[in-house]
């Protein structure tokens, strides 16, 4: 029996050493941002998500504005002046603090940091099953230990497997995923904002002030249903009360002051994340218009060159459609194939403060009507009032539609029809009026 126990112990020790050596190699591969084999979705997403954000924070280039926060903030589009480091709820404020530190340390250009989080993120007290994969694996390293409070380290070390957490094998072996913090939950009696969030929000604010960086905490656009839930749970007053009580007034006092509330249809089943590409763009534009308006706007990347006549057919690759609609190029024509009865296309931005005449030669597979939507200043959504509707018949239709630029902001939305079918665009031009 003694011989057997001795052999088992020896095997375990050797395996331990080999595991760590192999893991060290794999961790170094994970940290390579271009390594597509490792940077995949699925169970490794937590790790690669955090590592990608840290890498980006260290290489923010000339960006002046940084967006950090939850997964709901990941749809906010980047452009030349804005960098998006949004991760996930489970990263917690401790992980966000690490990102801000890396950002400020490695960039001289950053002027503003926006933290976009759902209210629930403020409650995150480093407890729950996602904490290991999304926080401990990417952020809890020797490099970052100095950023964490003794309370945070104590909470991490409270887990039975924590002695391995700084070793390479804990970043790689799936077996460590079974560790969770569910037994480590602190019962917060009355506060909405968790002690962990309170501490790191304060730290982020102080760090930003020390480096002349503005730090703003905001909610992303919220669905109507979720807003109703927050209202009935008195979330706004709870956050306000915590902010007064724990001297966070300068940080989250105005968090819920003027949230953007949007129709549920733009969100997926959880009513938090965007449903499709059209929704992503739409909500991203709202965030830019409302909060980042003094910075370069997303559609700039998609705007077409100025010309007396703009051929919109050539820019078909930049059309953004809903889930049920496909765009196909056949010869010189563009076919819009819609499986749903409400095909929608967001056109690339091309309005340059001029009145334009849109000329469309459209072949429809059925009798229906085409509609162009535009948004005016202050409008959050497209509406029937700000639209031009043209009935079309089965076969070829030539449409001439004037759009007044002074009232128009953002991108035009084009609904080729109101029925399932194929719509062939043979001519699609915008010319000065």
């Amino acid at each position, binding site marked *: 029996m003694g011989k057997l126990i001795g052999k088992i112990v020896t*095997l375990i020790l050797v*395996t331990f050493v080999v595991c760590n050596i192999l893991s060290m190699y794999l961790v170094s591969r994970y940290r390579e941002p271009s390594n597509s084999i490792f940077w995949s979705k*699925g169970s490794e997403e937590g790790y690669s998500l955090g590592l990608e954000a840290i890498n980006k924070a260290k290489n923010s280039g000339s960006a002046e504005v940084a967006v950090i926060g939850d997964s709901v903030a990941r749809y906010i589009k980047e452009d030349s002046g804005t960098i998006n480091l949004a991760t996930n709820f489970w990263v917690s404020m401790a992980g966000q603090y690490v990102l801000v530190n890396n950002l400020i340390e490695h960039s001289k250009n950053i002027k503003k940091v926006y933290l976009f989080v759902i209210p629930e993120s403020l409650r995150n007290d480093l407890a729950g099953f996602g904490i290991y994969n999304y926080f401990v694996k990417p952020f809890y390293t020797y490099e970052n230990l100095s950023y964490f409070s003794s309370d945070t380290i104590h909470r991490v070390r409270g887990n039975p497997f924590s002695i391995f957490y700084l070793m390479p094998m804990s970043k790689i072996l799936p077996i460590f995923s079974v560790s969770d913090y569910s037994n480590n939950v602190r019962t917060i009696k009355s506060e909405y904002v968790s002690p962990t969030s309170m501490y790191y929000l304060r730290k982020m604010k102080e760090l930003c002030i020390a480096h002349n960086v503005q730090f703003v905490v905001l909610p992303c656009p919220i669905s109507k249903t979720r807003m109703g839930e927050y209202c009935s749970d008195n979330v706004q007053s709870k956050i306000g009360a915590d902010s007064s009580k724990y001297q966070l007034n300068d940080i989250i006092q105005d968090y819920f002051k003027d949230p953007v509330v949007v129709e549920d249809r733009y969100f997926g089943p959880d009513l938090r994340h965007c449903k499709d590409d059209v929704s992503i763009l739409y909500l991203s534009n709202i965030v830019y218009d409302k909060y980042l308006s003094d910075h370069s706007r997303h559609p700039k990347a998609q705007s077409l060159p100025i010309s007396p006549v703009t051929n919109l057919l050539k820019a078909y690759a930049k059309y953004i459609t809903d889930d049920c609609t496909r765009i196909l190029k056949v010869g010189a024509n563009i076919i819009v194939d819609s499986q749903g009865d409400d095909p929608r296309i967001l056109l690339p931005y091309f309005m340059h403060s001029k009145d334009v005449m849109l000329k469309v030669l459209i072949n429809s597979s059925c009798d229906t009507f085409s509609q162009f939507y535009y948004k005016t200043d202050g409008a959050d959504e497209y509406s029937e009032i700000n639209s031009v509707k043209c009935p079309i018949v089965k076969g070829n239709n030539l449409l001439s539609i004037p759009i007044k630029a002074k009232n128009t902001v953002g991108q035009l939305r084009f609904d080729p029809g109101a029925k399932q079918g194929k719509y062939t665009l043979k001519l699609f031009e915008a010319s000065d009026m």
Partner: protein
Amino acid sequence: MLFNSLKYFMFLPLVYLLFYLVGDRARWCVLLAASLLFYATLNVPYLLVVLVLVTITTYGFGIWLDKADSPKAKCILLWSGIAANVLILVIMKYLPFLSENLKYLSTLISLKTQIQPVKALVSIGVSYYVLQAVSYLSDIYLEIEKPERHFGSFALYMAFFPKLLQGPIERSGYLLPQLKKPYVFSYDNMRSGMILFAWGLMKKVVIADRFALMVNPVYDNVHACNGVQLLLATYFFALQIYFDFSGYTDMALGTAKMFNINLTNNFNNPYFATSIADFWRRWHISFSRWILDYIFKPLQMQWRYWKNWGIAAALLVTFGVSGLWHGASWGYMVWGVLHGAYMAIAVFCKPIQKRILATLNVNHKSVTYKIFNIIVVFNLVCFAWIFFRSKSIQDSYYIIASIFRSFTNANAFVFGDFITYDYSLIHQSLLLCTTLAYAITVFVVESNGVGFAMNKLLAQNTLKRQSVYMILLLSLLFLGIVDNTKFLYLQY
């Protein structure tokens, strides 16, 4: 707790330590207490009550059977004992199914009384030890075995934790003597038990659970998948269920071996079977022997005057019951009857098959012919698995139709579509290749049986052996899926 959980890795050494330290007289107490604790950790209190009820009932009926004087009294006691156990099983497992179908029938015939469907109860392990109880009573009736007088030993026979949740279904004559034998520490048994356990764990968490990643997204959403995806998912499911169940069996056998107890090996390379009958001699062996001895043979004897029709009828009933035992749904029933139909058709076709082979001058012992049979049998088994795995009969029909339709559509196959798990294509390909490589390795290693492979390994020098152990451990640590995945056969 399950074999592939961290709790079990702490539970087993503690139980063994206690077992080792106490004397022979108390060892059955340690194992029995451990078995009951093992069952209790499932957190379903009434399961323990059911186990105790089945144990007491079977023990009592066993003693009375032995004491009964007349054949009539014996017969009554036997059927009463069997009925009592089967009634427990029906209540635990089949009431929801029966109530749903009665409700459907009542709506068909426009009955005024509303039949409310009954909520399903957790019945983990019940199917297995009820069959064990029935075989115990039958063996006493047939005077093959004597009843066990020591209640503790009998209770341990029923509840022995390595085989409690998913079998093997052990005969009393095979297991009871081993449980009562004095224990002498055996280095070889301990070592081979641990290796077998690790081997089984590897089959489960590295191979079966990875195939599950490829099967579940397809079978859970069949209408969103094309025929090629459904076909591949079916083949992957065949591999998943084999590695899952045989992995569990190896873990059970390995655990028992550490206590110097040999359980029945349930698998013998079933996918290399050359006929359906051969398949059932290799798949879930303890169960197929049970249905052969206690259902098929009595029925065949009863209907022997119908000759081939009698055999066919006995096969259909036997495998219909087998399907129903696996689960309370029409899908399982169809799966079982399909296997019965395969065997029944084989009975009638045997003379025709011999004539065809003779006419074509085919040597039935040739390797080519064997390979052909293996491929045919594997596909027949996979066809039946469709009904086994699908959520409903309608889904099964849809899958079959899609598979056959896809062969008429030249554009059906898109390489990147065949796995729907949310990984990049290169990662999906790596996942599939790794899993297939492991699966092929297991098939090669086990081609002459696990025992043979074990002996060969233990005959190697220390360096080679330690290298194999290291590779096994590293595979478990780096590739094992560890999110508390259940065993497939746990639900039956």
